[in-house]
Structure formats: C-alpha cells, structure tokens
C-alpha cells in the first residue's frame, strides 16, 4: 500500500507527464461519408520534440493536422493541447488555443491579395494590438530575416517561388511565438536543394524555439533529418512509431515495403 508521500509523488509525476505532453491525440476517428480516414489513432508529442507522420497518400495525415488545430471535428476520440480537450470549444476559446499554434499549410496558403510583409504581419495586427506599427514592422522584418526572406518584403505571393512561399508561411506561423508547430508537407513540390534548405530551417527554428512539432511528410529523408520520432500511418492508424532505426529494424511487411520504396 502506497504512503501519502508516494501517492503525492505519483500524482506530481502524472501532472508533470501531462504538462510535458503538449499534444495528446487519443483514439481519434474521422470519416468523410463512407470513407474512414482515421481509425482510432493515438499520438503524443512533448515540448521540444518533433514527430514526423509518414504514410501513403490519402491515409489522413493532413486530416490529422487539421483535427489537431480544430479545422475539422473528430467523429470520436480526443485532441488535448496542454491537457485541454479542444472538442466542443467555442470558436473564441479555440482561438485562444490556436494562438499557441503555428500551422504551415501544404501550399503555404498565403493571402494572395497581401504582400509578403502584410502576410507575416497579419497575426500580429489581430492579436498584438498593444504593439505599435513600428514594433510590428520590426518584428515582421525579424521573422522574415529568420527564414531568409528579408529582401522580399513588398513582393506579392504570386511573384515568389514555392519554396519562398513556404518560408514566408513559416515566418507567419511563428509570428505569435507558438509553442506548437504543425507542418503539412513542408518539402512537397520543392527541388532537393530547396527541400534541404527548408529542413535546415526547421531544425534551426526547432533548436531556437524549442516547440512541440508535428511534420506530415512523404519525404523519408526529410523526416529522418528533422524528426526525433517517426510514426507510420496505414489504414487510419499508426503501424509503428519510434526512431528511424526502430522502423528499419521492423519486421512488419508494410513498414519494410514503405521504407524500401522511399
């Protein structure tokens, strides 16, 4: 039988674990019509950790990110951010949680009627109203310098390349200093050099900002470079989760097949 001190210690450990688990996805199900996309998936990501989610096209990797940020609602299961279940939250309450999250969309999703500078300033204008215009301008320049885009302030999104758009998207995602970063196919559609640059950038940002990150990708090389752990998804669930070496040692046929073809 545990003493009172032991019980308190265990409770403190449990609370510490919950705090460390910045993102906790539990038994998540999502279907679109008759098509089941996620079938009871569970994942956790701790502060300072990067999880790469791999899988074939159409296996619900992007849907998983959209569920985590609340752009889609799950059929069942829960998504906890810093221990708070986001299901059933009103838009304003969800907004509070989203301010702690940065999201890089697959095609960057820059606002096409705004310049690069205005795109990055957008979250600041809406959430940092105490900052003066010049302070906001300085912060935008700082963010763009961080992603190597400080010379393109006045360009429109249509005037820059896909890789540059992703850099700007990344700067916008970091504008509110989030402690969670969600990256949807950050290197998709980029040439190997641009993809490597994005990987280096993510690693640099990760080291500087110490965020909990989930990277959805097809690119095994990129996943290996930037992630601490990898999770391979098939048929709506995690087939295997662990370091790259663990995946390499796996006897599961799908894992071997996936690694063999990547």
């Amino acid at each position, binding site marked *: 039988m545990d003493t009172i001190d032991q019980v308190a210690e265990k409770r403190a450990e449990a609370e510490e674990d919950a705090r460390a688990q910045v993102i906790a996805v539990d038994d998540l199900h999502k279907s679109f019509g008759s098509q089941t996309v996620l079938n009871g998936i569970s994942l956790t990501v701790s502060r300072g950790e990067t999880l790469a989610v791999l899988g074939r096209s159409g296996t619900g990797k992007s849907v998983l990110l*959209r569920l985590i*940020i609340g*752009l889609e609602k799950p059929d069942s299961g829960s998504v906890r951010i810093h221990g708070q279940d986001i299901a059933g939250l009103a*838009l*304003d309450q*969800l*907004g*509070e949680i*989203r*301010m702690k*999250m940065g*999201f890089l*969309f*697959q*095609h960057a*999703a*820059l*606002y*096409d009627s705004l310049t690069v500078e205005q795109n990055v300033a*957008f*979250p600041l204008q*809406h*959430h940092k*109203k105490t900052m003066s215009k010049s302070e906001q301008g300085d912060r935008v320049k700082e963010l763009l310098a961080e992603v190597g885009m400080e010379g393109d302030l006045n360009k429109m999104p249509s005037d820059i390349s896909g890789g540059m758009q992703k850099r700007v998207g990344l700067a*916008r995602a970091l504008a*509110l200093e989030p402690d969670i970063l969600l990256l949807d196919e950050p290197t998709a559609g980029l040439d190997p050099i641009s993809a490597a640059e994005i990987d280096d950038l993510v690693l640099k940002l990760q080291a500087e900002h110490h965020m909990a990150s989930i990277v959805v990708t097809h690119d095994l090389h990129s996943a290996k470079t930037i992630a601490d752990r990898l999770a391979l998804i098939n048929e709506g669930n995690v087939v295997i989760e662990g370091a790259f070496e663990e995946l390499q040692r796996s006897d599961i046929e799908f894992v071997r097949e996936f690694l063999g073809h990547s």
Partner: protein
Amino acid sequence: MIDRRSRAVALLPSMGSSTPGLITRFLEWFGDLGIFFWRVVRAAVTPPFEFRELFRQLDEIGSMSLPLVALAGAATGVVLSLEARYSLTRFGAKSLLPAAIVFSVIHETGPIITGLVVSGRVGAGIGAELASMKVTEQIDAIEASAVNPYKLLAAPRILACILVLPLLTLAADLCGLVMGWVAQALVEPLSFHQFISSGFKGADFNDLLPPTFKTMVFGLIIGLIACFQGMRTRGGAAGVGRAATSSVVLSSLFVILADVVLVKLILIFFP
C-alpha cells in the same frame, strides 16, 4: 401503348427517390444558411469590430457599383418614359406621364433594378473571391491564425451590402428620373422643375422611404448568400465558378421573391 406505360412506370421510382432527395438537400441548404447567418450575427456584434474592412467593402461594393447602377437606372428611366408615353397617349392620359414615371421609378424599378444589378456584380464578386480563398486554404489559414473568418470576411461584406443598397437605389432613382425627363423633354418641351412638381404631386415620404429602405433586405440577401456560397465551396477552379454562378442565381432569385413579400408588406403598413 404497353411500352409507353411501362416506360412511365419505370420512371416513377427514380422520381420518387430524387424528389425527396431534392427536398432534403434544399432543407439542408436552408439549415446551413441559418447556422451561417447566426455565426455571422454573433461575430458581428462581438468586439473587436473590423471597421477598416467594413470601409474597404463599402468602397468596393458602393463606389464600384455606382456607375453600373446609375447606367441601369438611367436606361430604365428612358424606357419607362418611352413606353408610358405611348400607352398613356393611347388612353388619353398623357398628363399623367410625369407621375407615372416618378412612381414607377421610386416604387419599384429603381429598387429592383439596383438589387438585381448589385446581385450580379457584387454577388459574383464576393462568391468568387471567397470561394477562391476557400479552395486555396486561405480561409483555413485565417482560422488557424485564431482570427474568426465570419467576423473578418463575412460580416463586413454583408453589412456593407445592407448599408450601400439604399444609397445606390437613390442614385438609380435620380438617374432614372433625370433620364425619364430627358426622354420626355426631347419629344415635348418640359422643364425639369415642371416634370418633378407634376410627378411628385400627391406623393409623400411613404412613397420614397419604404421602397428605398426595403433594399436593405436585398443587401442582406445578396451579401449573405454570396458569402455563404463562397465560404462553403469545394473542388478547385470548377468550385469557384460554381460558387460565383450560384451566388448570382440564388441571390437574384431571392431578391425577386423578397420583393414580392416586401411590396405586399409596404402596401399593408404604408398604405
């Protein structure tokens, strides 16, 4: 005969299954529209308010629509003048011509022409713009940035439509009356002062204000349907095209239907 009957019977099951399906889809659409409207209202009345976006939309919807509305109003005035002159002369009531033009323009043709022109120009514009933002995930990006898209995108556009329609209607009325007078004066000399004093004889504010302010309902319909159709779009470039088309078709249709109801209500409450 047997063949024809069997073919008709064969059609029945498909009609039976498609008609309830259509009704269900129609009711679903209305339900979704109601939920959308509620979200916009809640976003619109909760601070912070997006005044800068509202002013931008007032300029975009109001100033940019003015030339088209003025032209449509002017053309309507000319046509009304020509048609009414021909008809009233046949029945020996030519002296009523100014009154016929004035009452037709301010009661009905000014407001409905404005409603239809704006639903064409603005409905298509809003529908296509928001649909394009939706399919390129820009609306999701707004939401992911913890900004309420109902507050930032829908509320200012709908509010701008509501505020601008009565002003555009007054512009259409004015152009219609001036060009109605010009068309008449070209045939038979008549001063503008004579035309107006004769046309407005017996008229009061009830003849001008309710028909003008009913266009606020048209503005609500145009803004609401265009934003709704745009923000629920799916399916790439084709989806954008469908959103623009459906915004124009549905908003024009509902403007006409609303006009029928509003005219009846105005006749009851402002006899």
